């Protein structure tokens, strides 16, 4: 076994780190902090994203004939890690998850129009799956689309449509058939909805982690039929393909590695004449954090390697998603303990350590437990596909 990156990969990492440092100007940083939830959407964010596009940094892993760089999953992993470290809210899913799905399932017109724009950093796509009665049980969704001539007419409502307040498109899961033959997932379709369509609207949902996500509403929204992705009533295949790609981009230890190095620096500095790292319990916490992060880094690298080899199993991907969540949950808590009561200060408070980053991070982590497949379902997959246990009965 050999867990190290090659010299070229390390070089790529260094050049990305330099690139991102230059991209993150003080003006951009201040715009990001002032947009609620650091999710982007402002003019400088848009400008930086287009810059990355024209510098050829988007679609690192896309095949060359689609305009990408043809790099492997390990390079993509490095890319995501570095972009995350830099604190730029890069819309990964647009380029890493929906982009490839559009390439696979989209109509020729949509492919021709959108793929270059995605690579150019000109569009952001939001995901509209979840509804008030359909989250983990996505196949229960009710938003409907009816074919009328060359158009689909869409009616319904979604919740937690992240980025929906500034995205250019919604990657929308809808029901297109209602008979018994097309029950649940058999009657779903995937439609790409331009957000400038009449009848589309949104309202904010503010989250505990200072995030801004949305309710989105579809009131007789008319969309050209060519925006159907995949077959009518064939949406489930598109959704699972997209979600599988999403899972691969979700778990990256980049941000945890960054705060670890900052906490490490902090505990070695003198505060009030003493160093925190000279206290036994601080040493114990740091040792546990080191071990957990080392393990997660190895697991994520192995995952990237497994994708490159074509050997990654669904059970392993699920296992790593669970491991990532559990690791974040415990290491951020242990880091907060090390920083002490000041760690609970919110960003902007005088004396807040690490610019308040840990306070935001611990509030963000719970989402990893249920988003992109809730961990109970992930564990079912590990048990059934990894160990071969009998299927769990669902009512």
């Amino acid at each position, binding site marked *: *076994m*050999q*867990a*190290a*990156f*090659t010299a070229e*990969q390390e070089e790529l990492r260094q050049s990305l780190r330099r690139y991102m440092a230059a991209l993150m100007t003080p003006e951009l940083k201040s715009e990001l902090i002032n947009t609620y939830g650091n999710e982007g959407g402002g003019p400088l964010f848009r400008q930086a994203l287009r810059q990355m596009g024209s510098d050829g940094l988007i679609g690192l892993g896309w095949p060359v004939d689609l305009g990408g760089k043809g790099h492997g999953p*390990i390079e993509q992993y490095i890319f995501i890690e570095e972009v995350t470290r830099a604190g730029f809210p890069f819309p990964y899913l647009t380029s890493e998850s929906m982009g490839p799905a559009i390439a696979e399932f989209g109509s020729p017109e949509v492919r021709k129009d959108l793929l270059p724009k995605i690579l150019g950093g000109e569009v952001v796509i939001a995901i509209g799956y979840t509804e008030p009665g359909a989250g983990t049980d996505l196949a229960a969704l009710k938003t409907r689309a009816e074919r009328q001539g060359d158009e689909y007419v869409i009616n319904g409502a979604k919740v937690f449509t992240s980025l929906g307040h500034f995205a250019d498109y919604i990657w929308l899961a809808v029901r297109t058939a209602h008979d018994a033959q097309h029950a649940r997932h058999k009657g779903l379709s995937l439609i790409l909805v331009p957000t400038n369509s009449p009848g589309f609207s949104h309202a904010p949902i503010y989250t505990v982690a200072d995030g801004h996500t949305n309710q989105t509403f579809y009131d007789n929204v008319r969309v050209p039929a060519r925006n159907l992705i995949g077959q009518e009533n064939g949406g489930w295949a598109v959704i699972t393909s997209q979600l599988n790609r999403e899972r691969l981009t979700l778990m990256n*230890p980049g941000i*945890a*590695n960054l705060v*670890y*190095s900052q906490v*490490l*620096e902090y505990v*070695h500095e003198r505060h009030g004449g003493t160093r925190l*790292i*000279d206290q*036994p319990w*601080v*040493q*114990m*916490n*740091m*040792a*546990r*954090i*080191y*071990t957990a*992060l*080392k*393990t997660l*880094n*190895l*697991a994520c*690298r*192995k995952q*990237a*390697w*497994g994708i490159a*080899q074509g050997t990654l199993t669904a*059970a*392993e991907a699920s*296992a790593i998603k*669970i*491991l990532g969540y559990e690791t974040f949950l415990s290491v951020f808590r242990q880091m907060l303990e090390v920083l002490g009561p000041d760690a609970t200060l919110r960003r902007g408070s005088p004396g807040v350590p690490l610019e308040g980053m840990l306070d935001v991070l611990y509030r963000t982590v719970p989402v990893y437990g249920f988003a992109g497949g809730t961990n*109970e379902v*992930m*564990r*079912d997959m*590990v*048990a059934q596909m*990894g*160990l*071969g*246990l*009998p*299927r*769990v*009965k669902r009512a």
Partner: protein
Amino acid sequence: MDFGLQETERELCELAESMLRDFSTPERLLKLEESGLRVDRELWAALKEAGITTIGVEPEHGGTGLGFGEACLVFEQVGKTVAAVPLLIHDIALQTLQRAGTLEALHRFVAADGWLAASARTDRGNSLCEANGRVTGTVSAVPYAPEAEAYLLPARADGSWSLYLVPAEQQSVRLEGQLGTDKSPMGRLTLDRAQASRLGDATLLEWLRQRLIAGCCAIQSGVVEETIKLTTAFVSEHEVFGVKEGSFQAVSQRMADTCIDSMTLQLMSRHVASLLAAQDDAVADVLAAKLLAGDVGHRVLASCQHVHGGIGHDRSYPLWRYAVAAKQIELAVTSSSEATAALGNVIAAQPDLVAL
């Protein structure tokens, strides 16, 4: 980056596993345990014949010439089969002699039919002292000390530690047989100005200690893997309330967690094996791996014993051997909490020790 096994590594694993499994049937292990010395001399002779007892020794010294990474893969198989052999201790002791350059002793023990015992412990008063080339003191729980040909032991002189080779057959060495929780033979050695030859300084002792720890992690990885296999088979067949036990979500979720634990331990264990194959010192990751090995062993065995219900406690069913093996390894050389404290010390001394 390569997280797979090479073809030769896979073949080595298969060879070692099949030999270890053939000999380590429950009936045979029971007999050995009842004999008072849980060492399978027939298996040991077969392993020696196949070159597995000298795996880390260079061919020019009569060994097989494979690296530490390969040795640890074989230790995983020892864990999977809970085989009654002192392979870890003996093989690492030989590698230490090779490292120290004491070739005469190395050749002698490579050729011998018996085994070497070794201990790196210096804790809780288990400290030997050296004066005028003679070693004095007591050290307890030395694995496979009974009937060993010689011992590798740390001793202190003028405040600094060195590693010594102590021949077993001498008046001034008293051995009291001890029995490990896994029923393996251990020994308390009391030395009274015993003859000993110095192999190296504290650096060599640390070299030995890190490899003993990494080897333990590999064994634990095998123990845990086999335990999960056994338990998966059980809950897939066993019926309660008219359904397979494994179809209860509470049970399958717990088993999924054992699977994740096992995956991480195998990764960490193989990672430190690869580091130690390439460099002398990997103290931070070695300690991290032992911390994990102790925690994972504890958690996985608790879960697997639990979902077995009563039969997991029945000594005619194989699970108990894995439970005691995991605990033996958990406490061997250094425990999870002690490793945590030691790793904390390393971090305190190394401000630039980033996670990866």
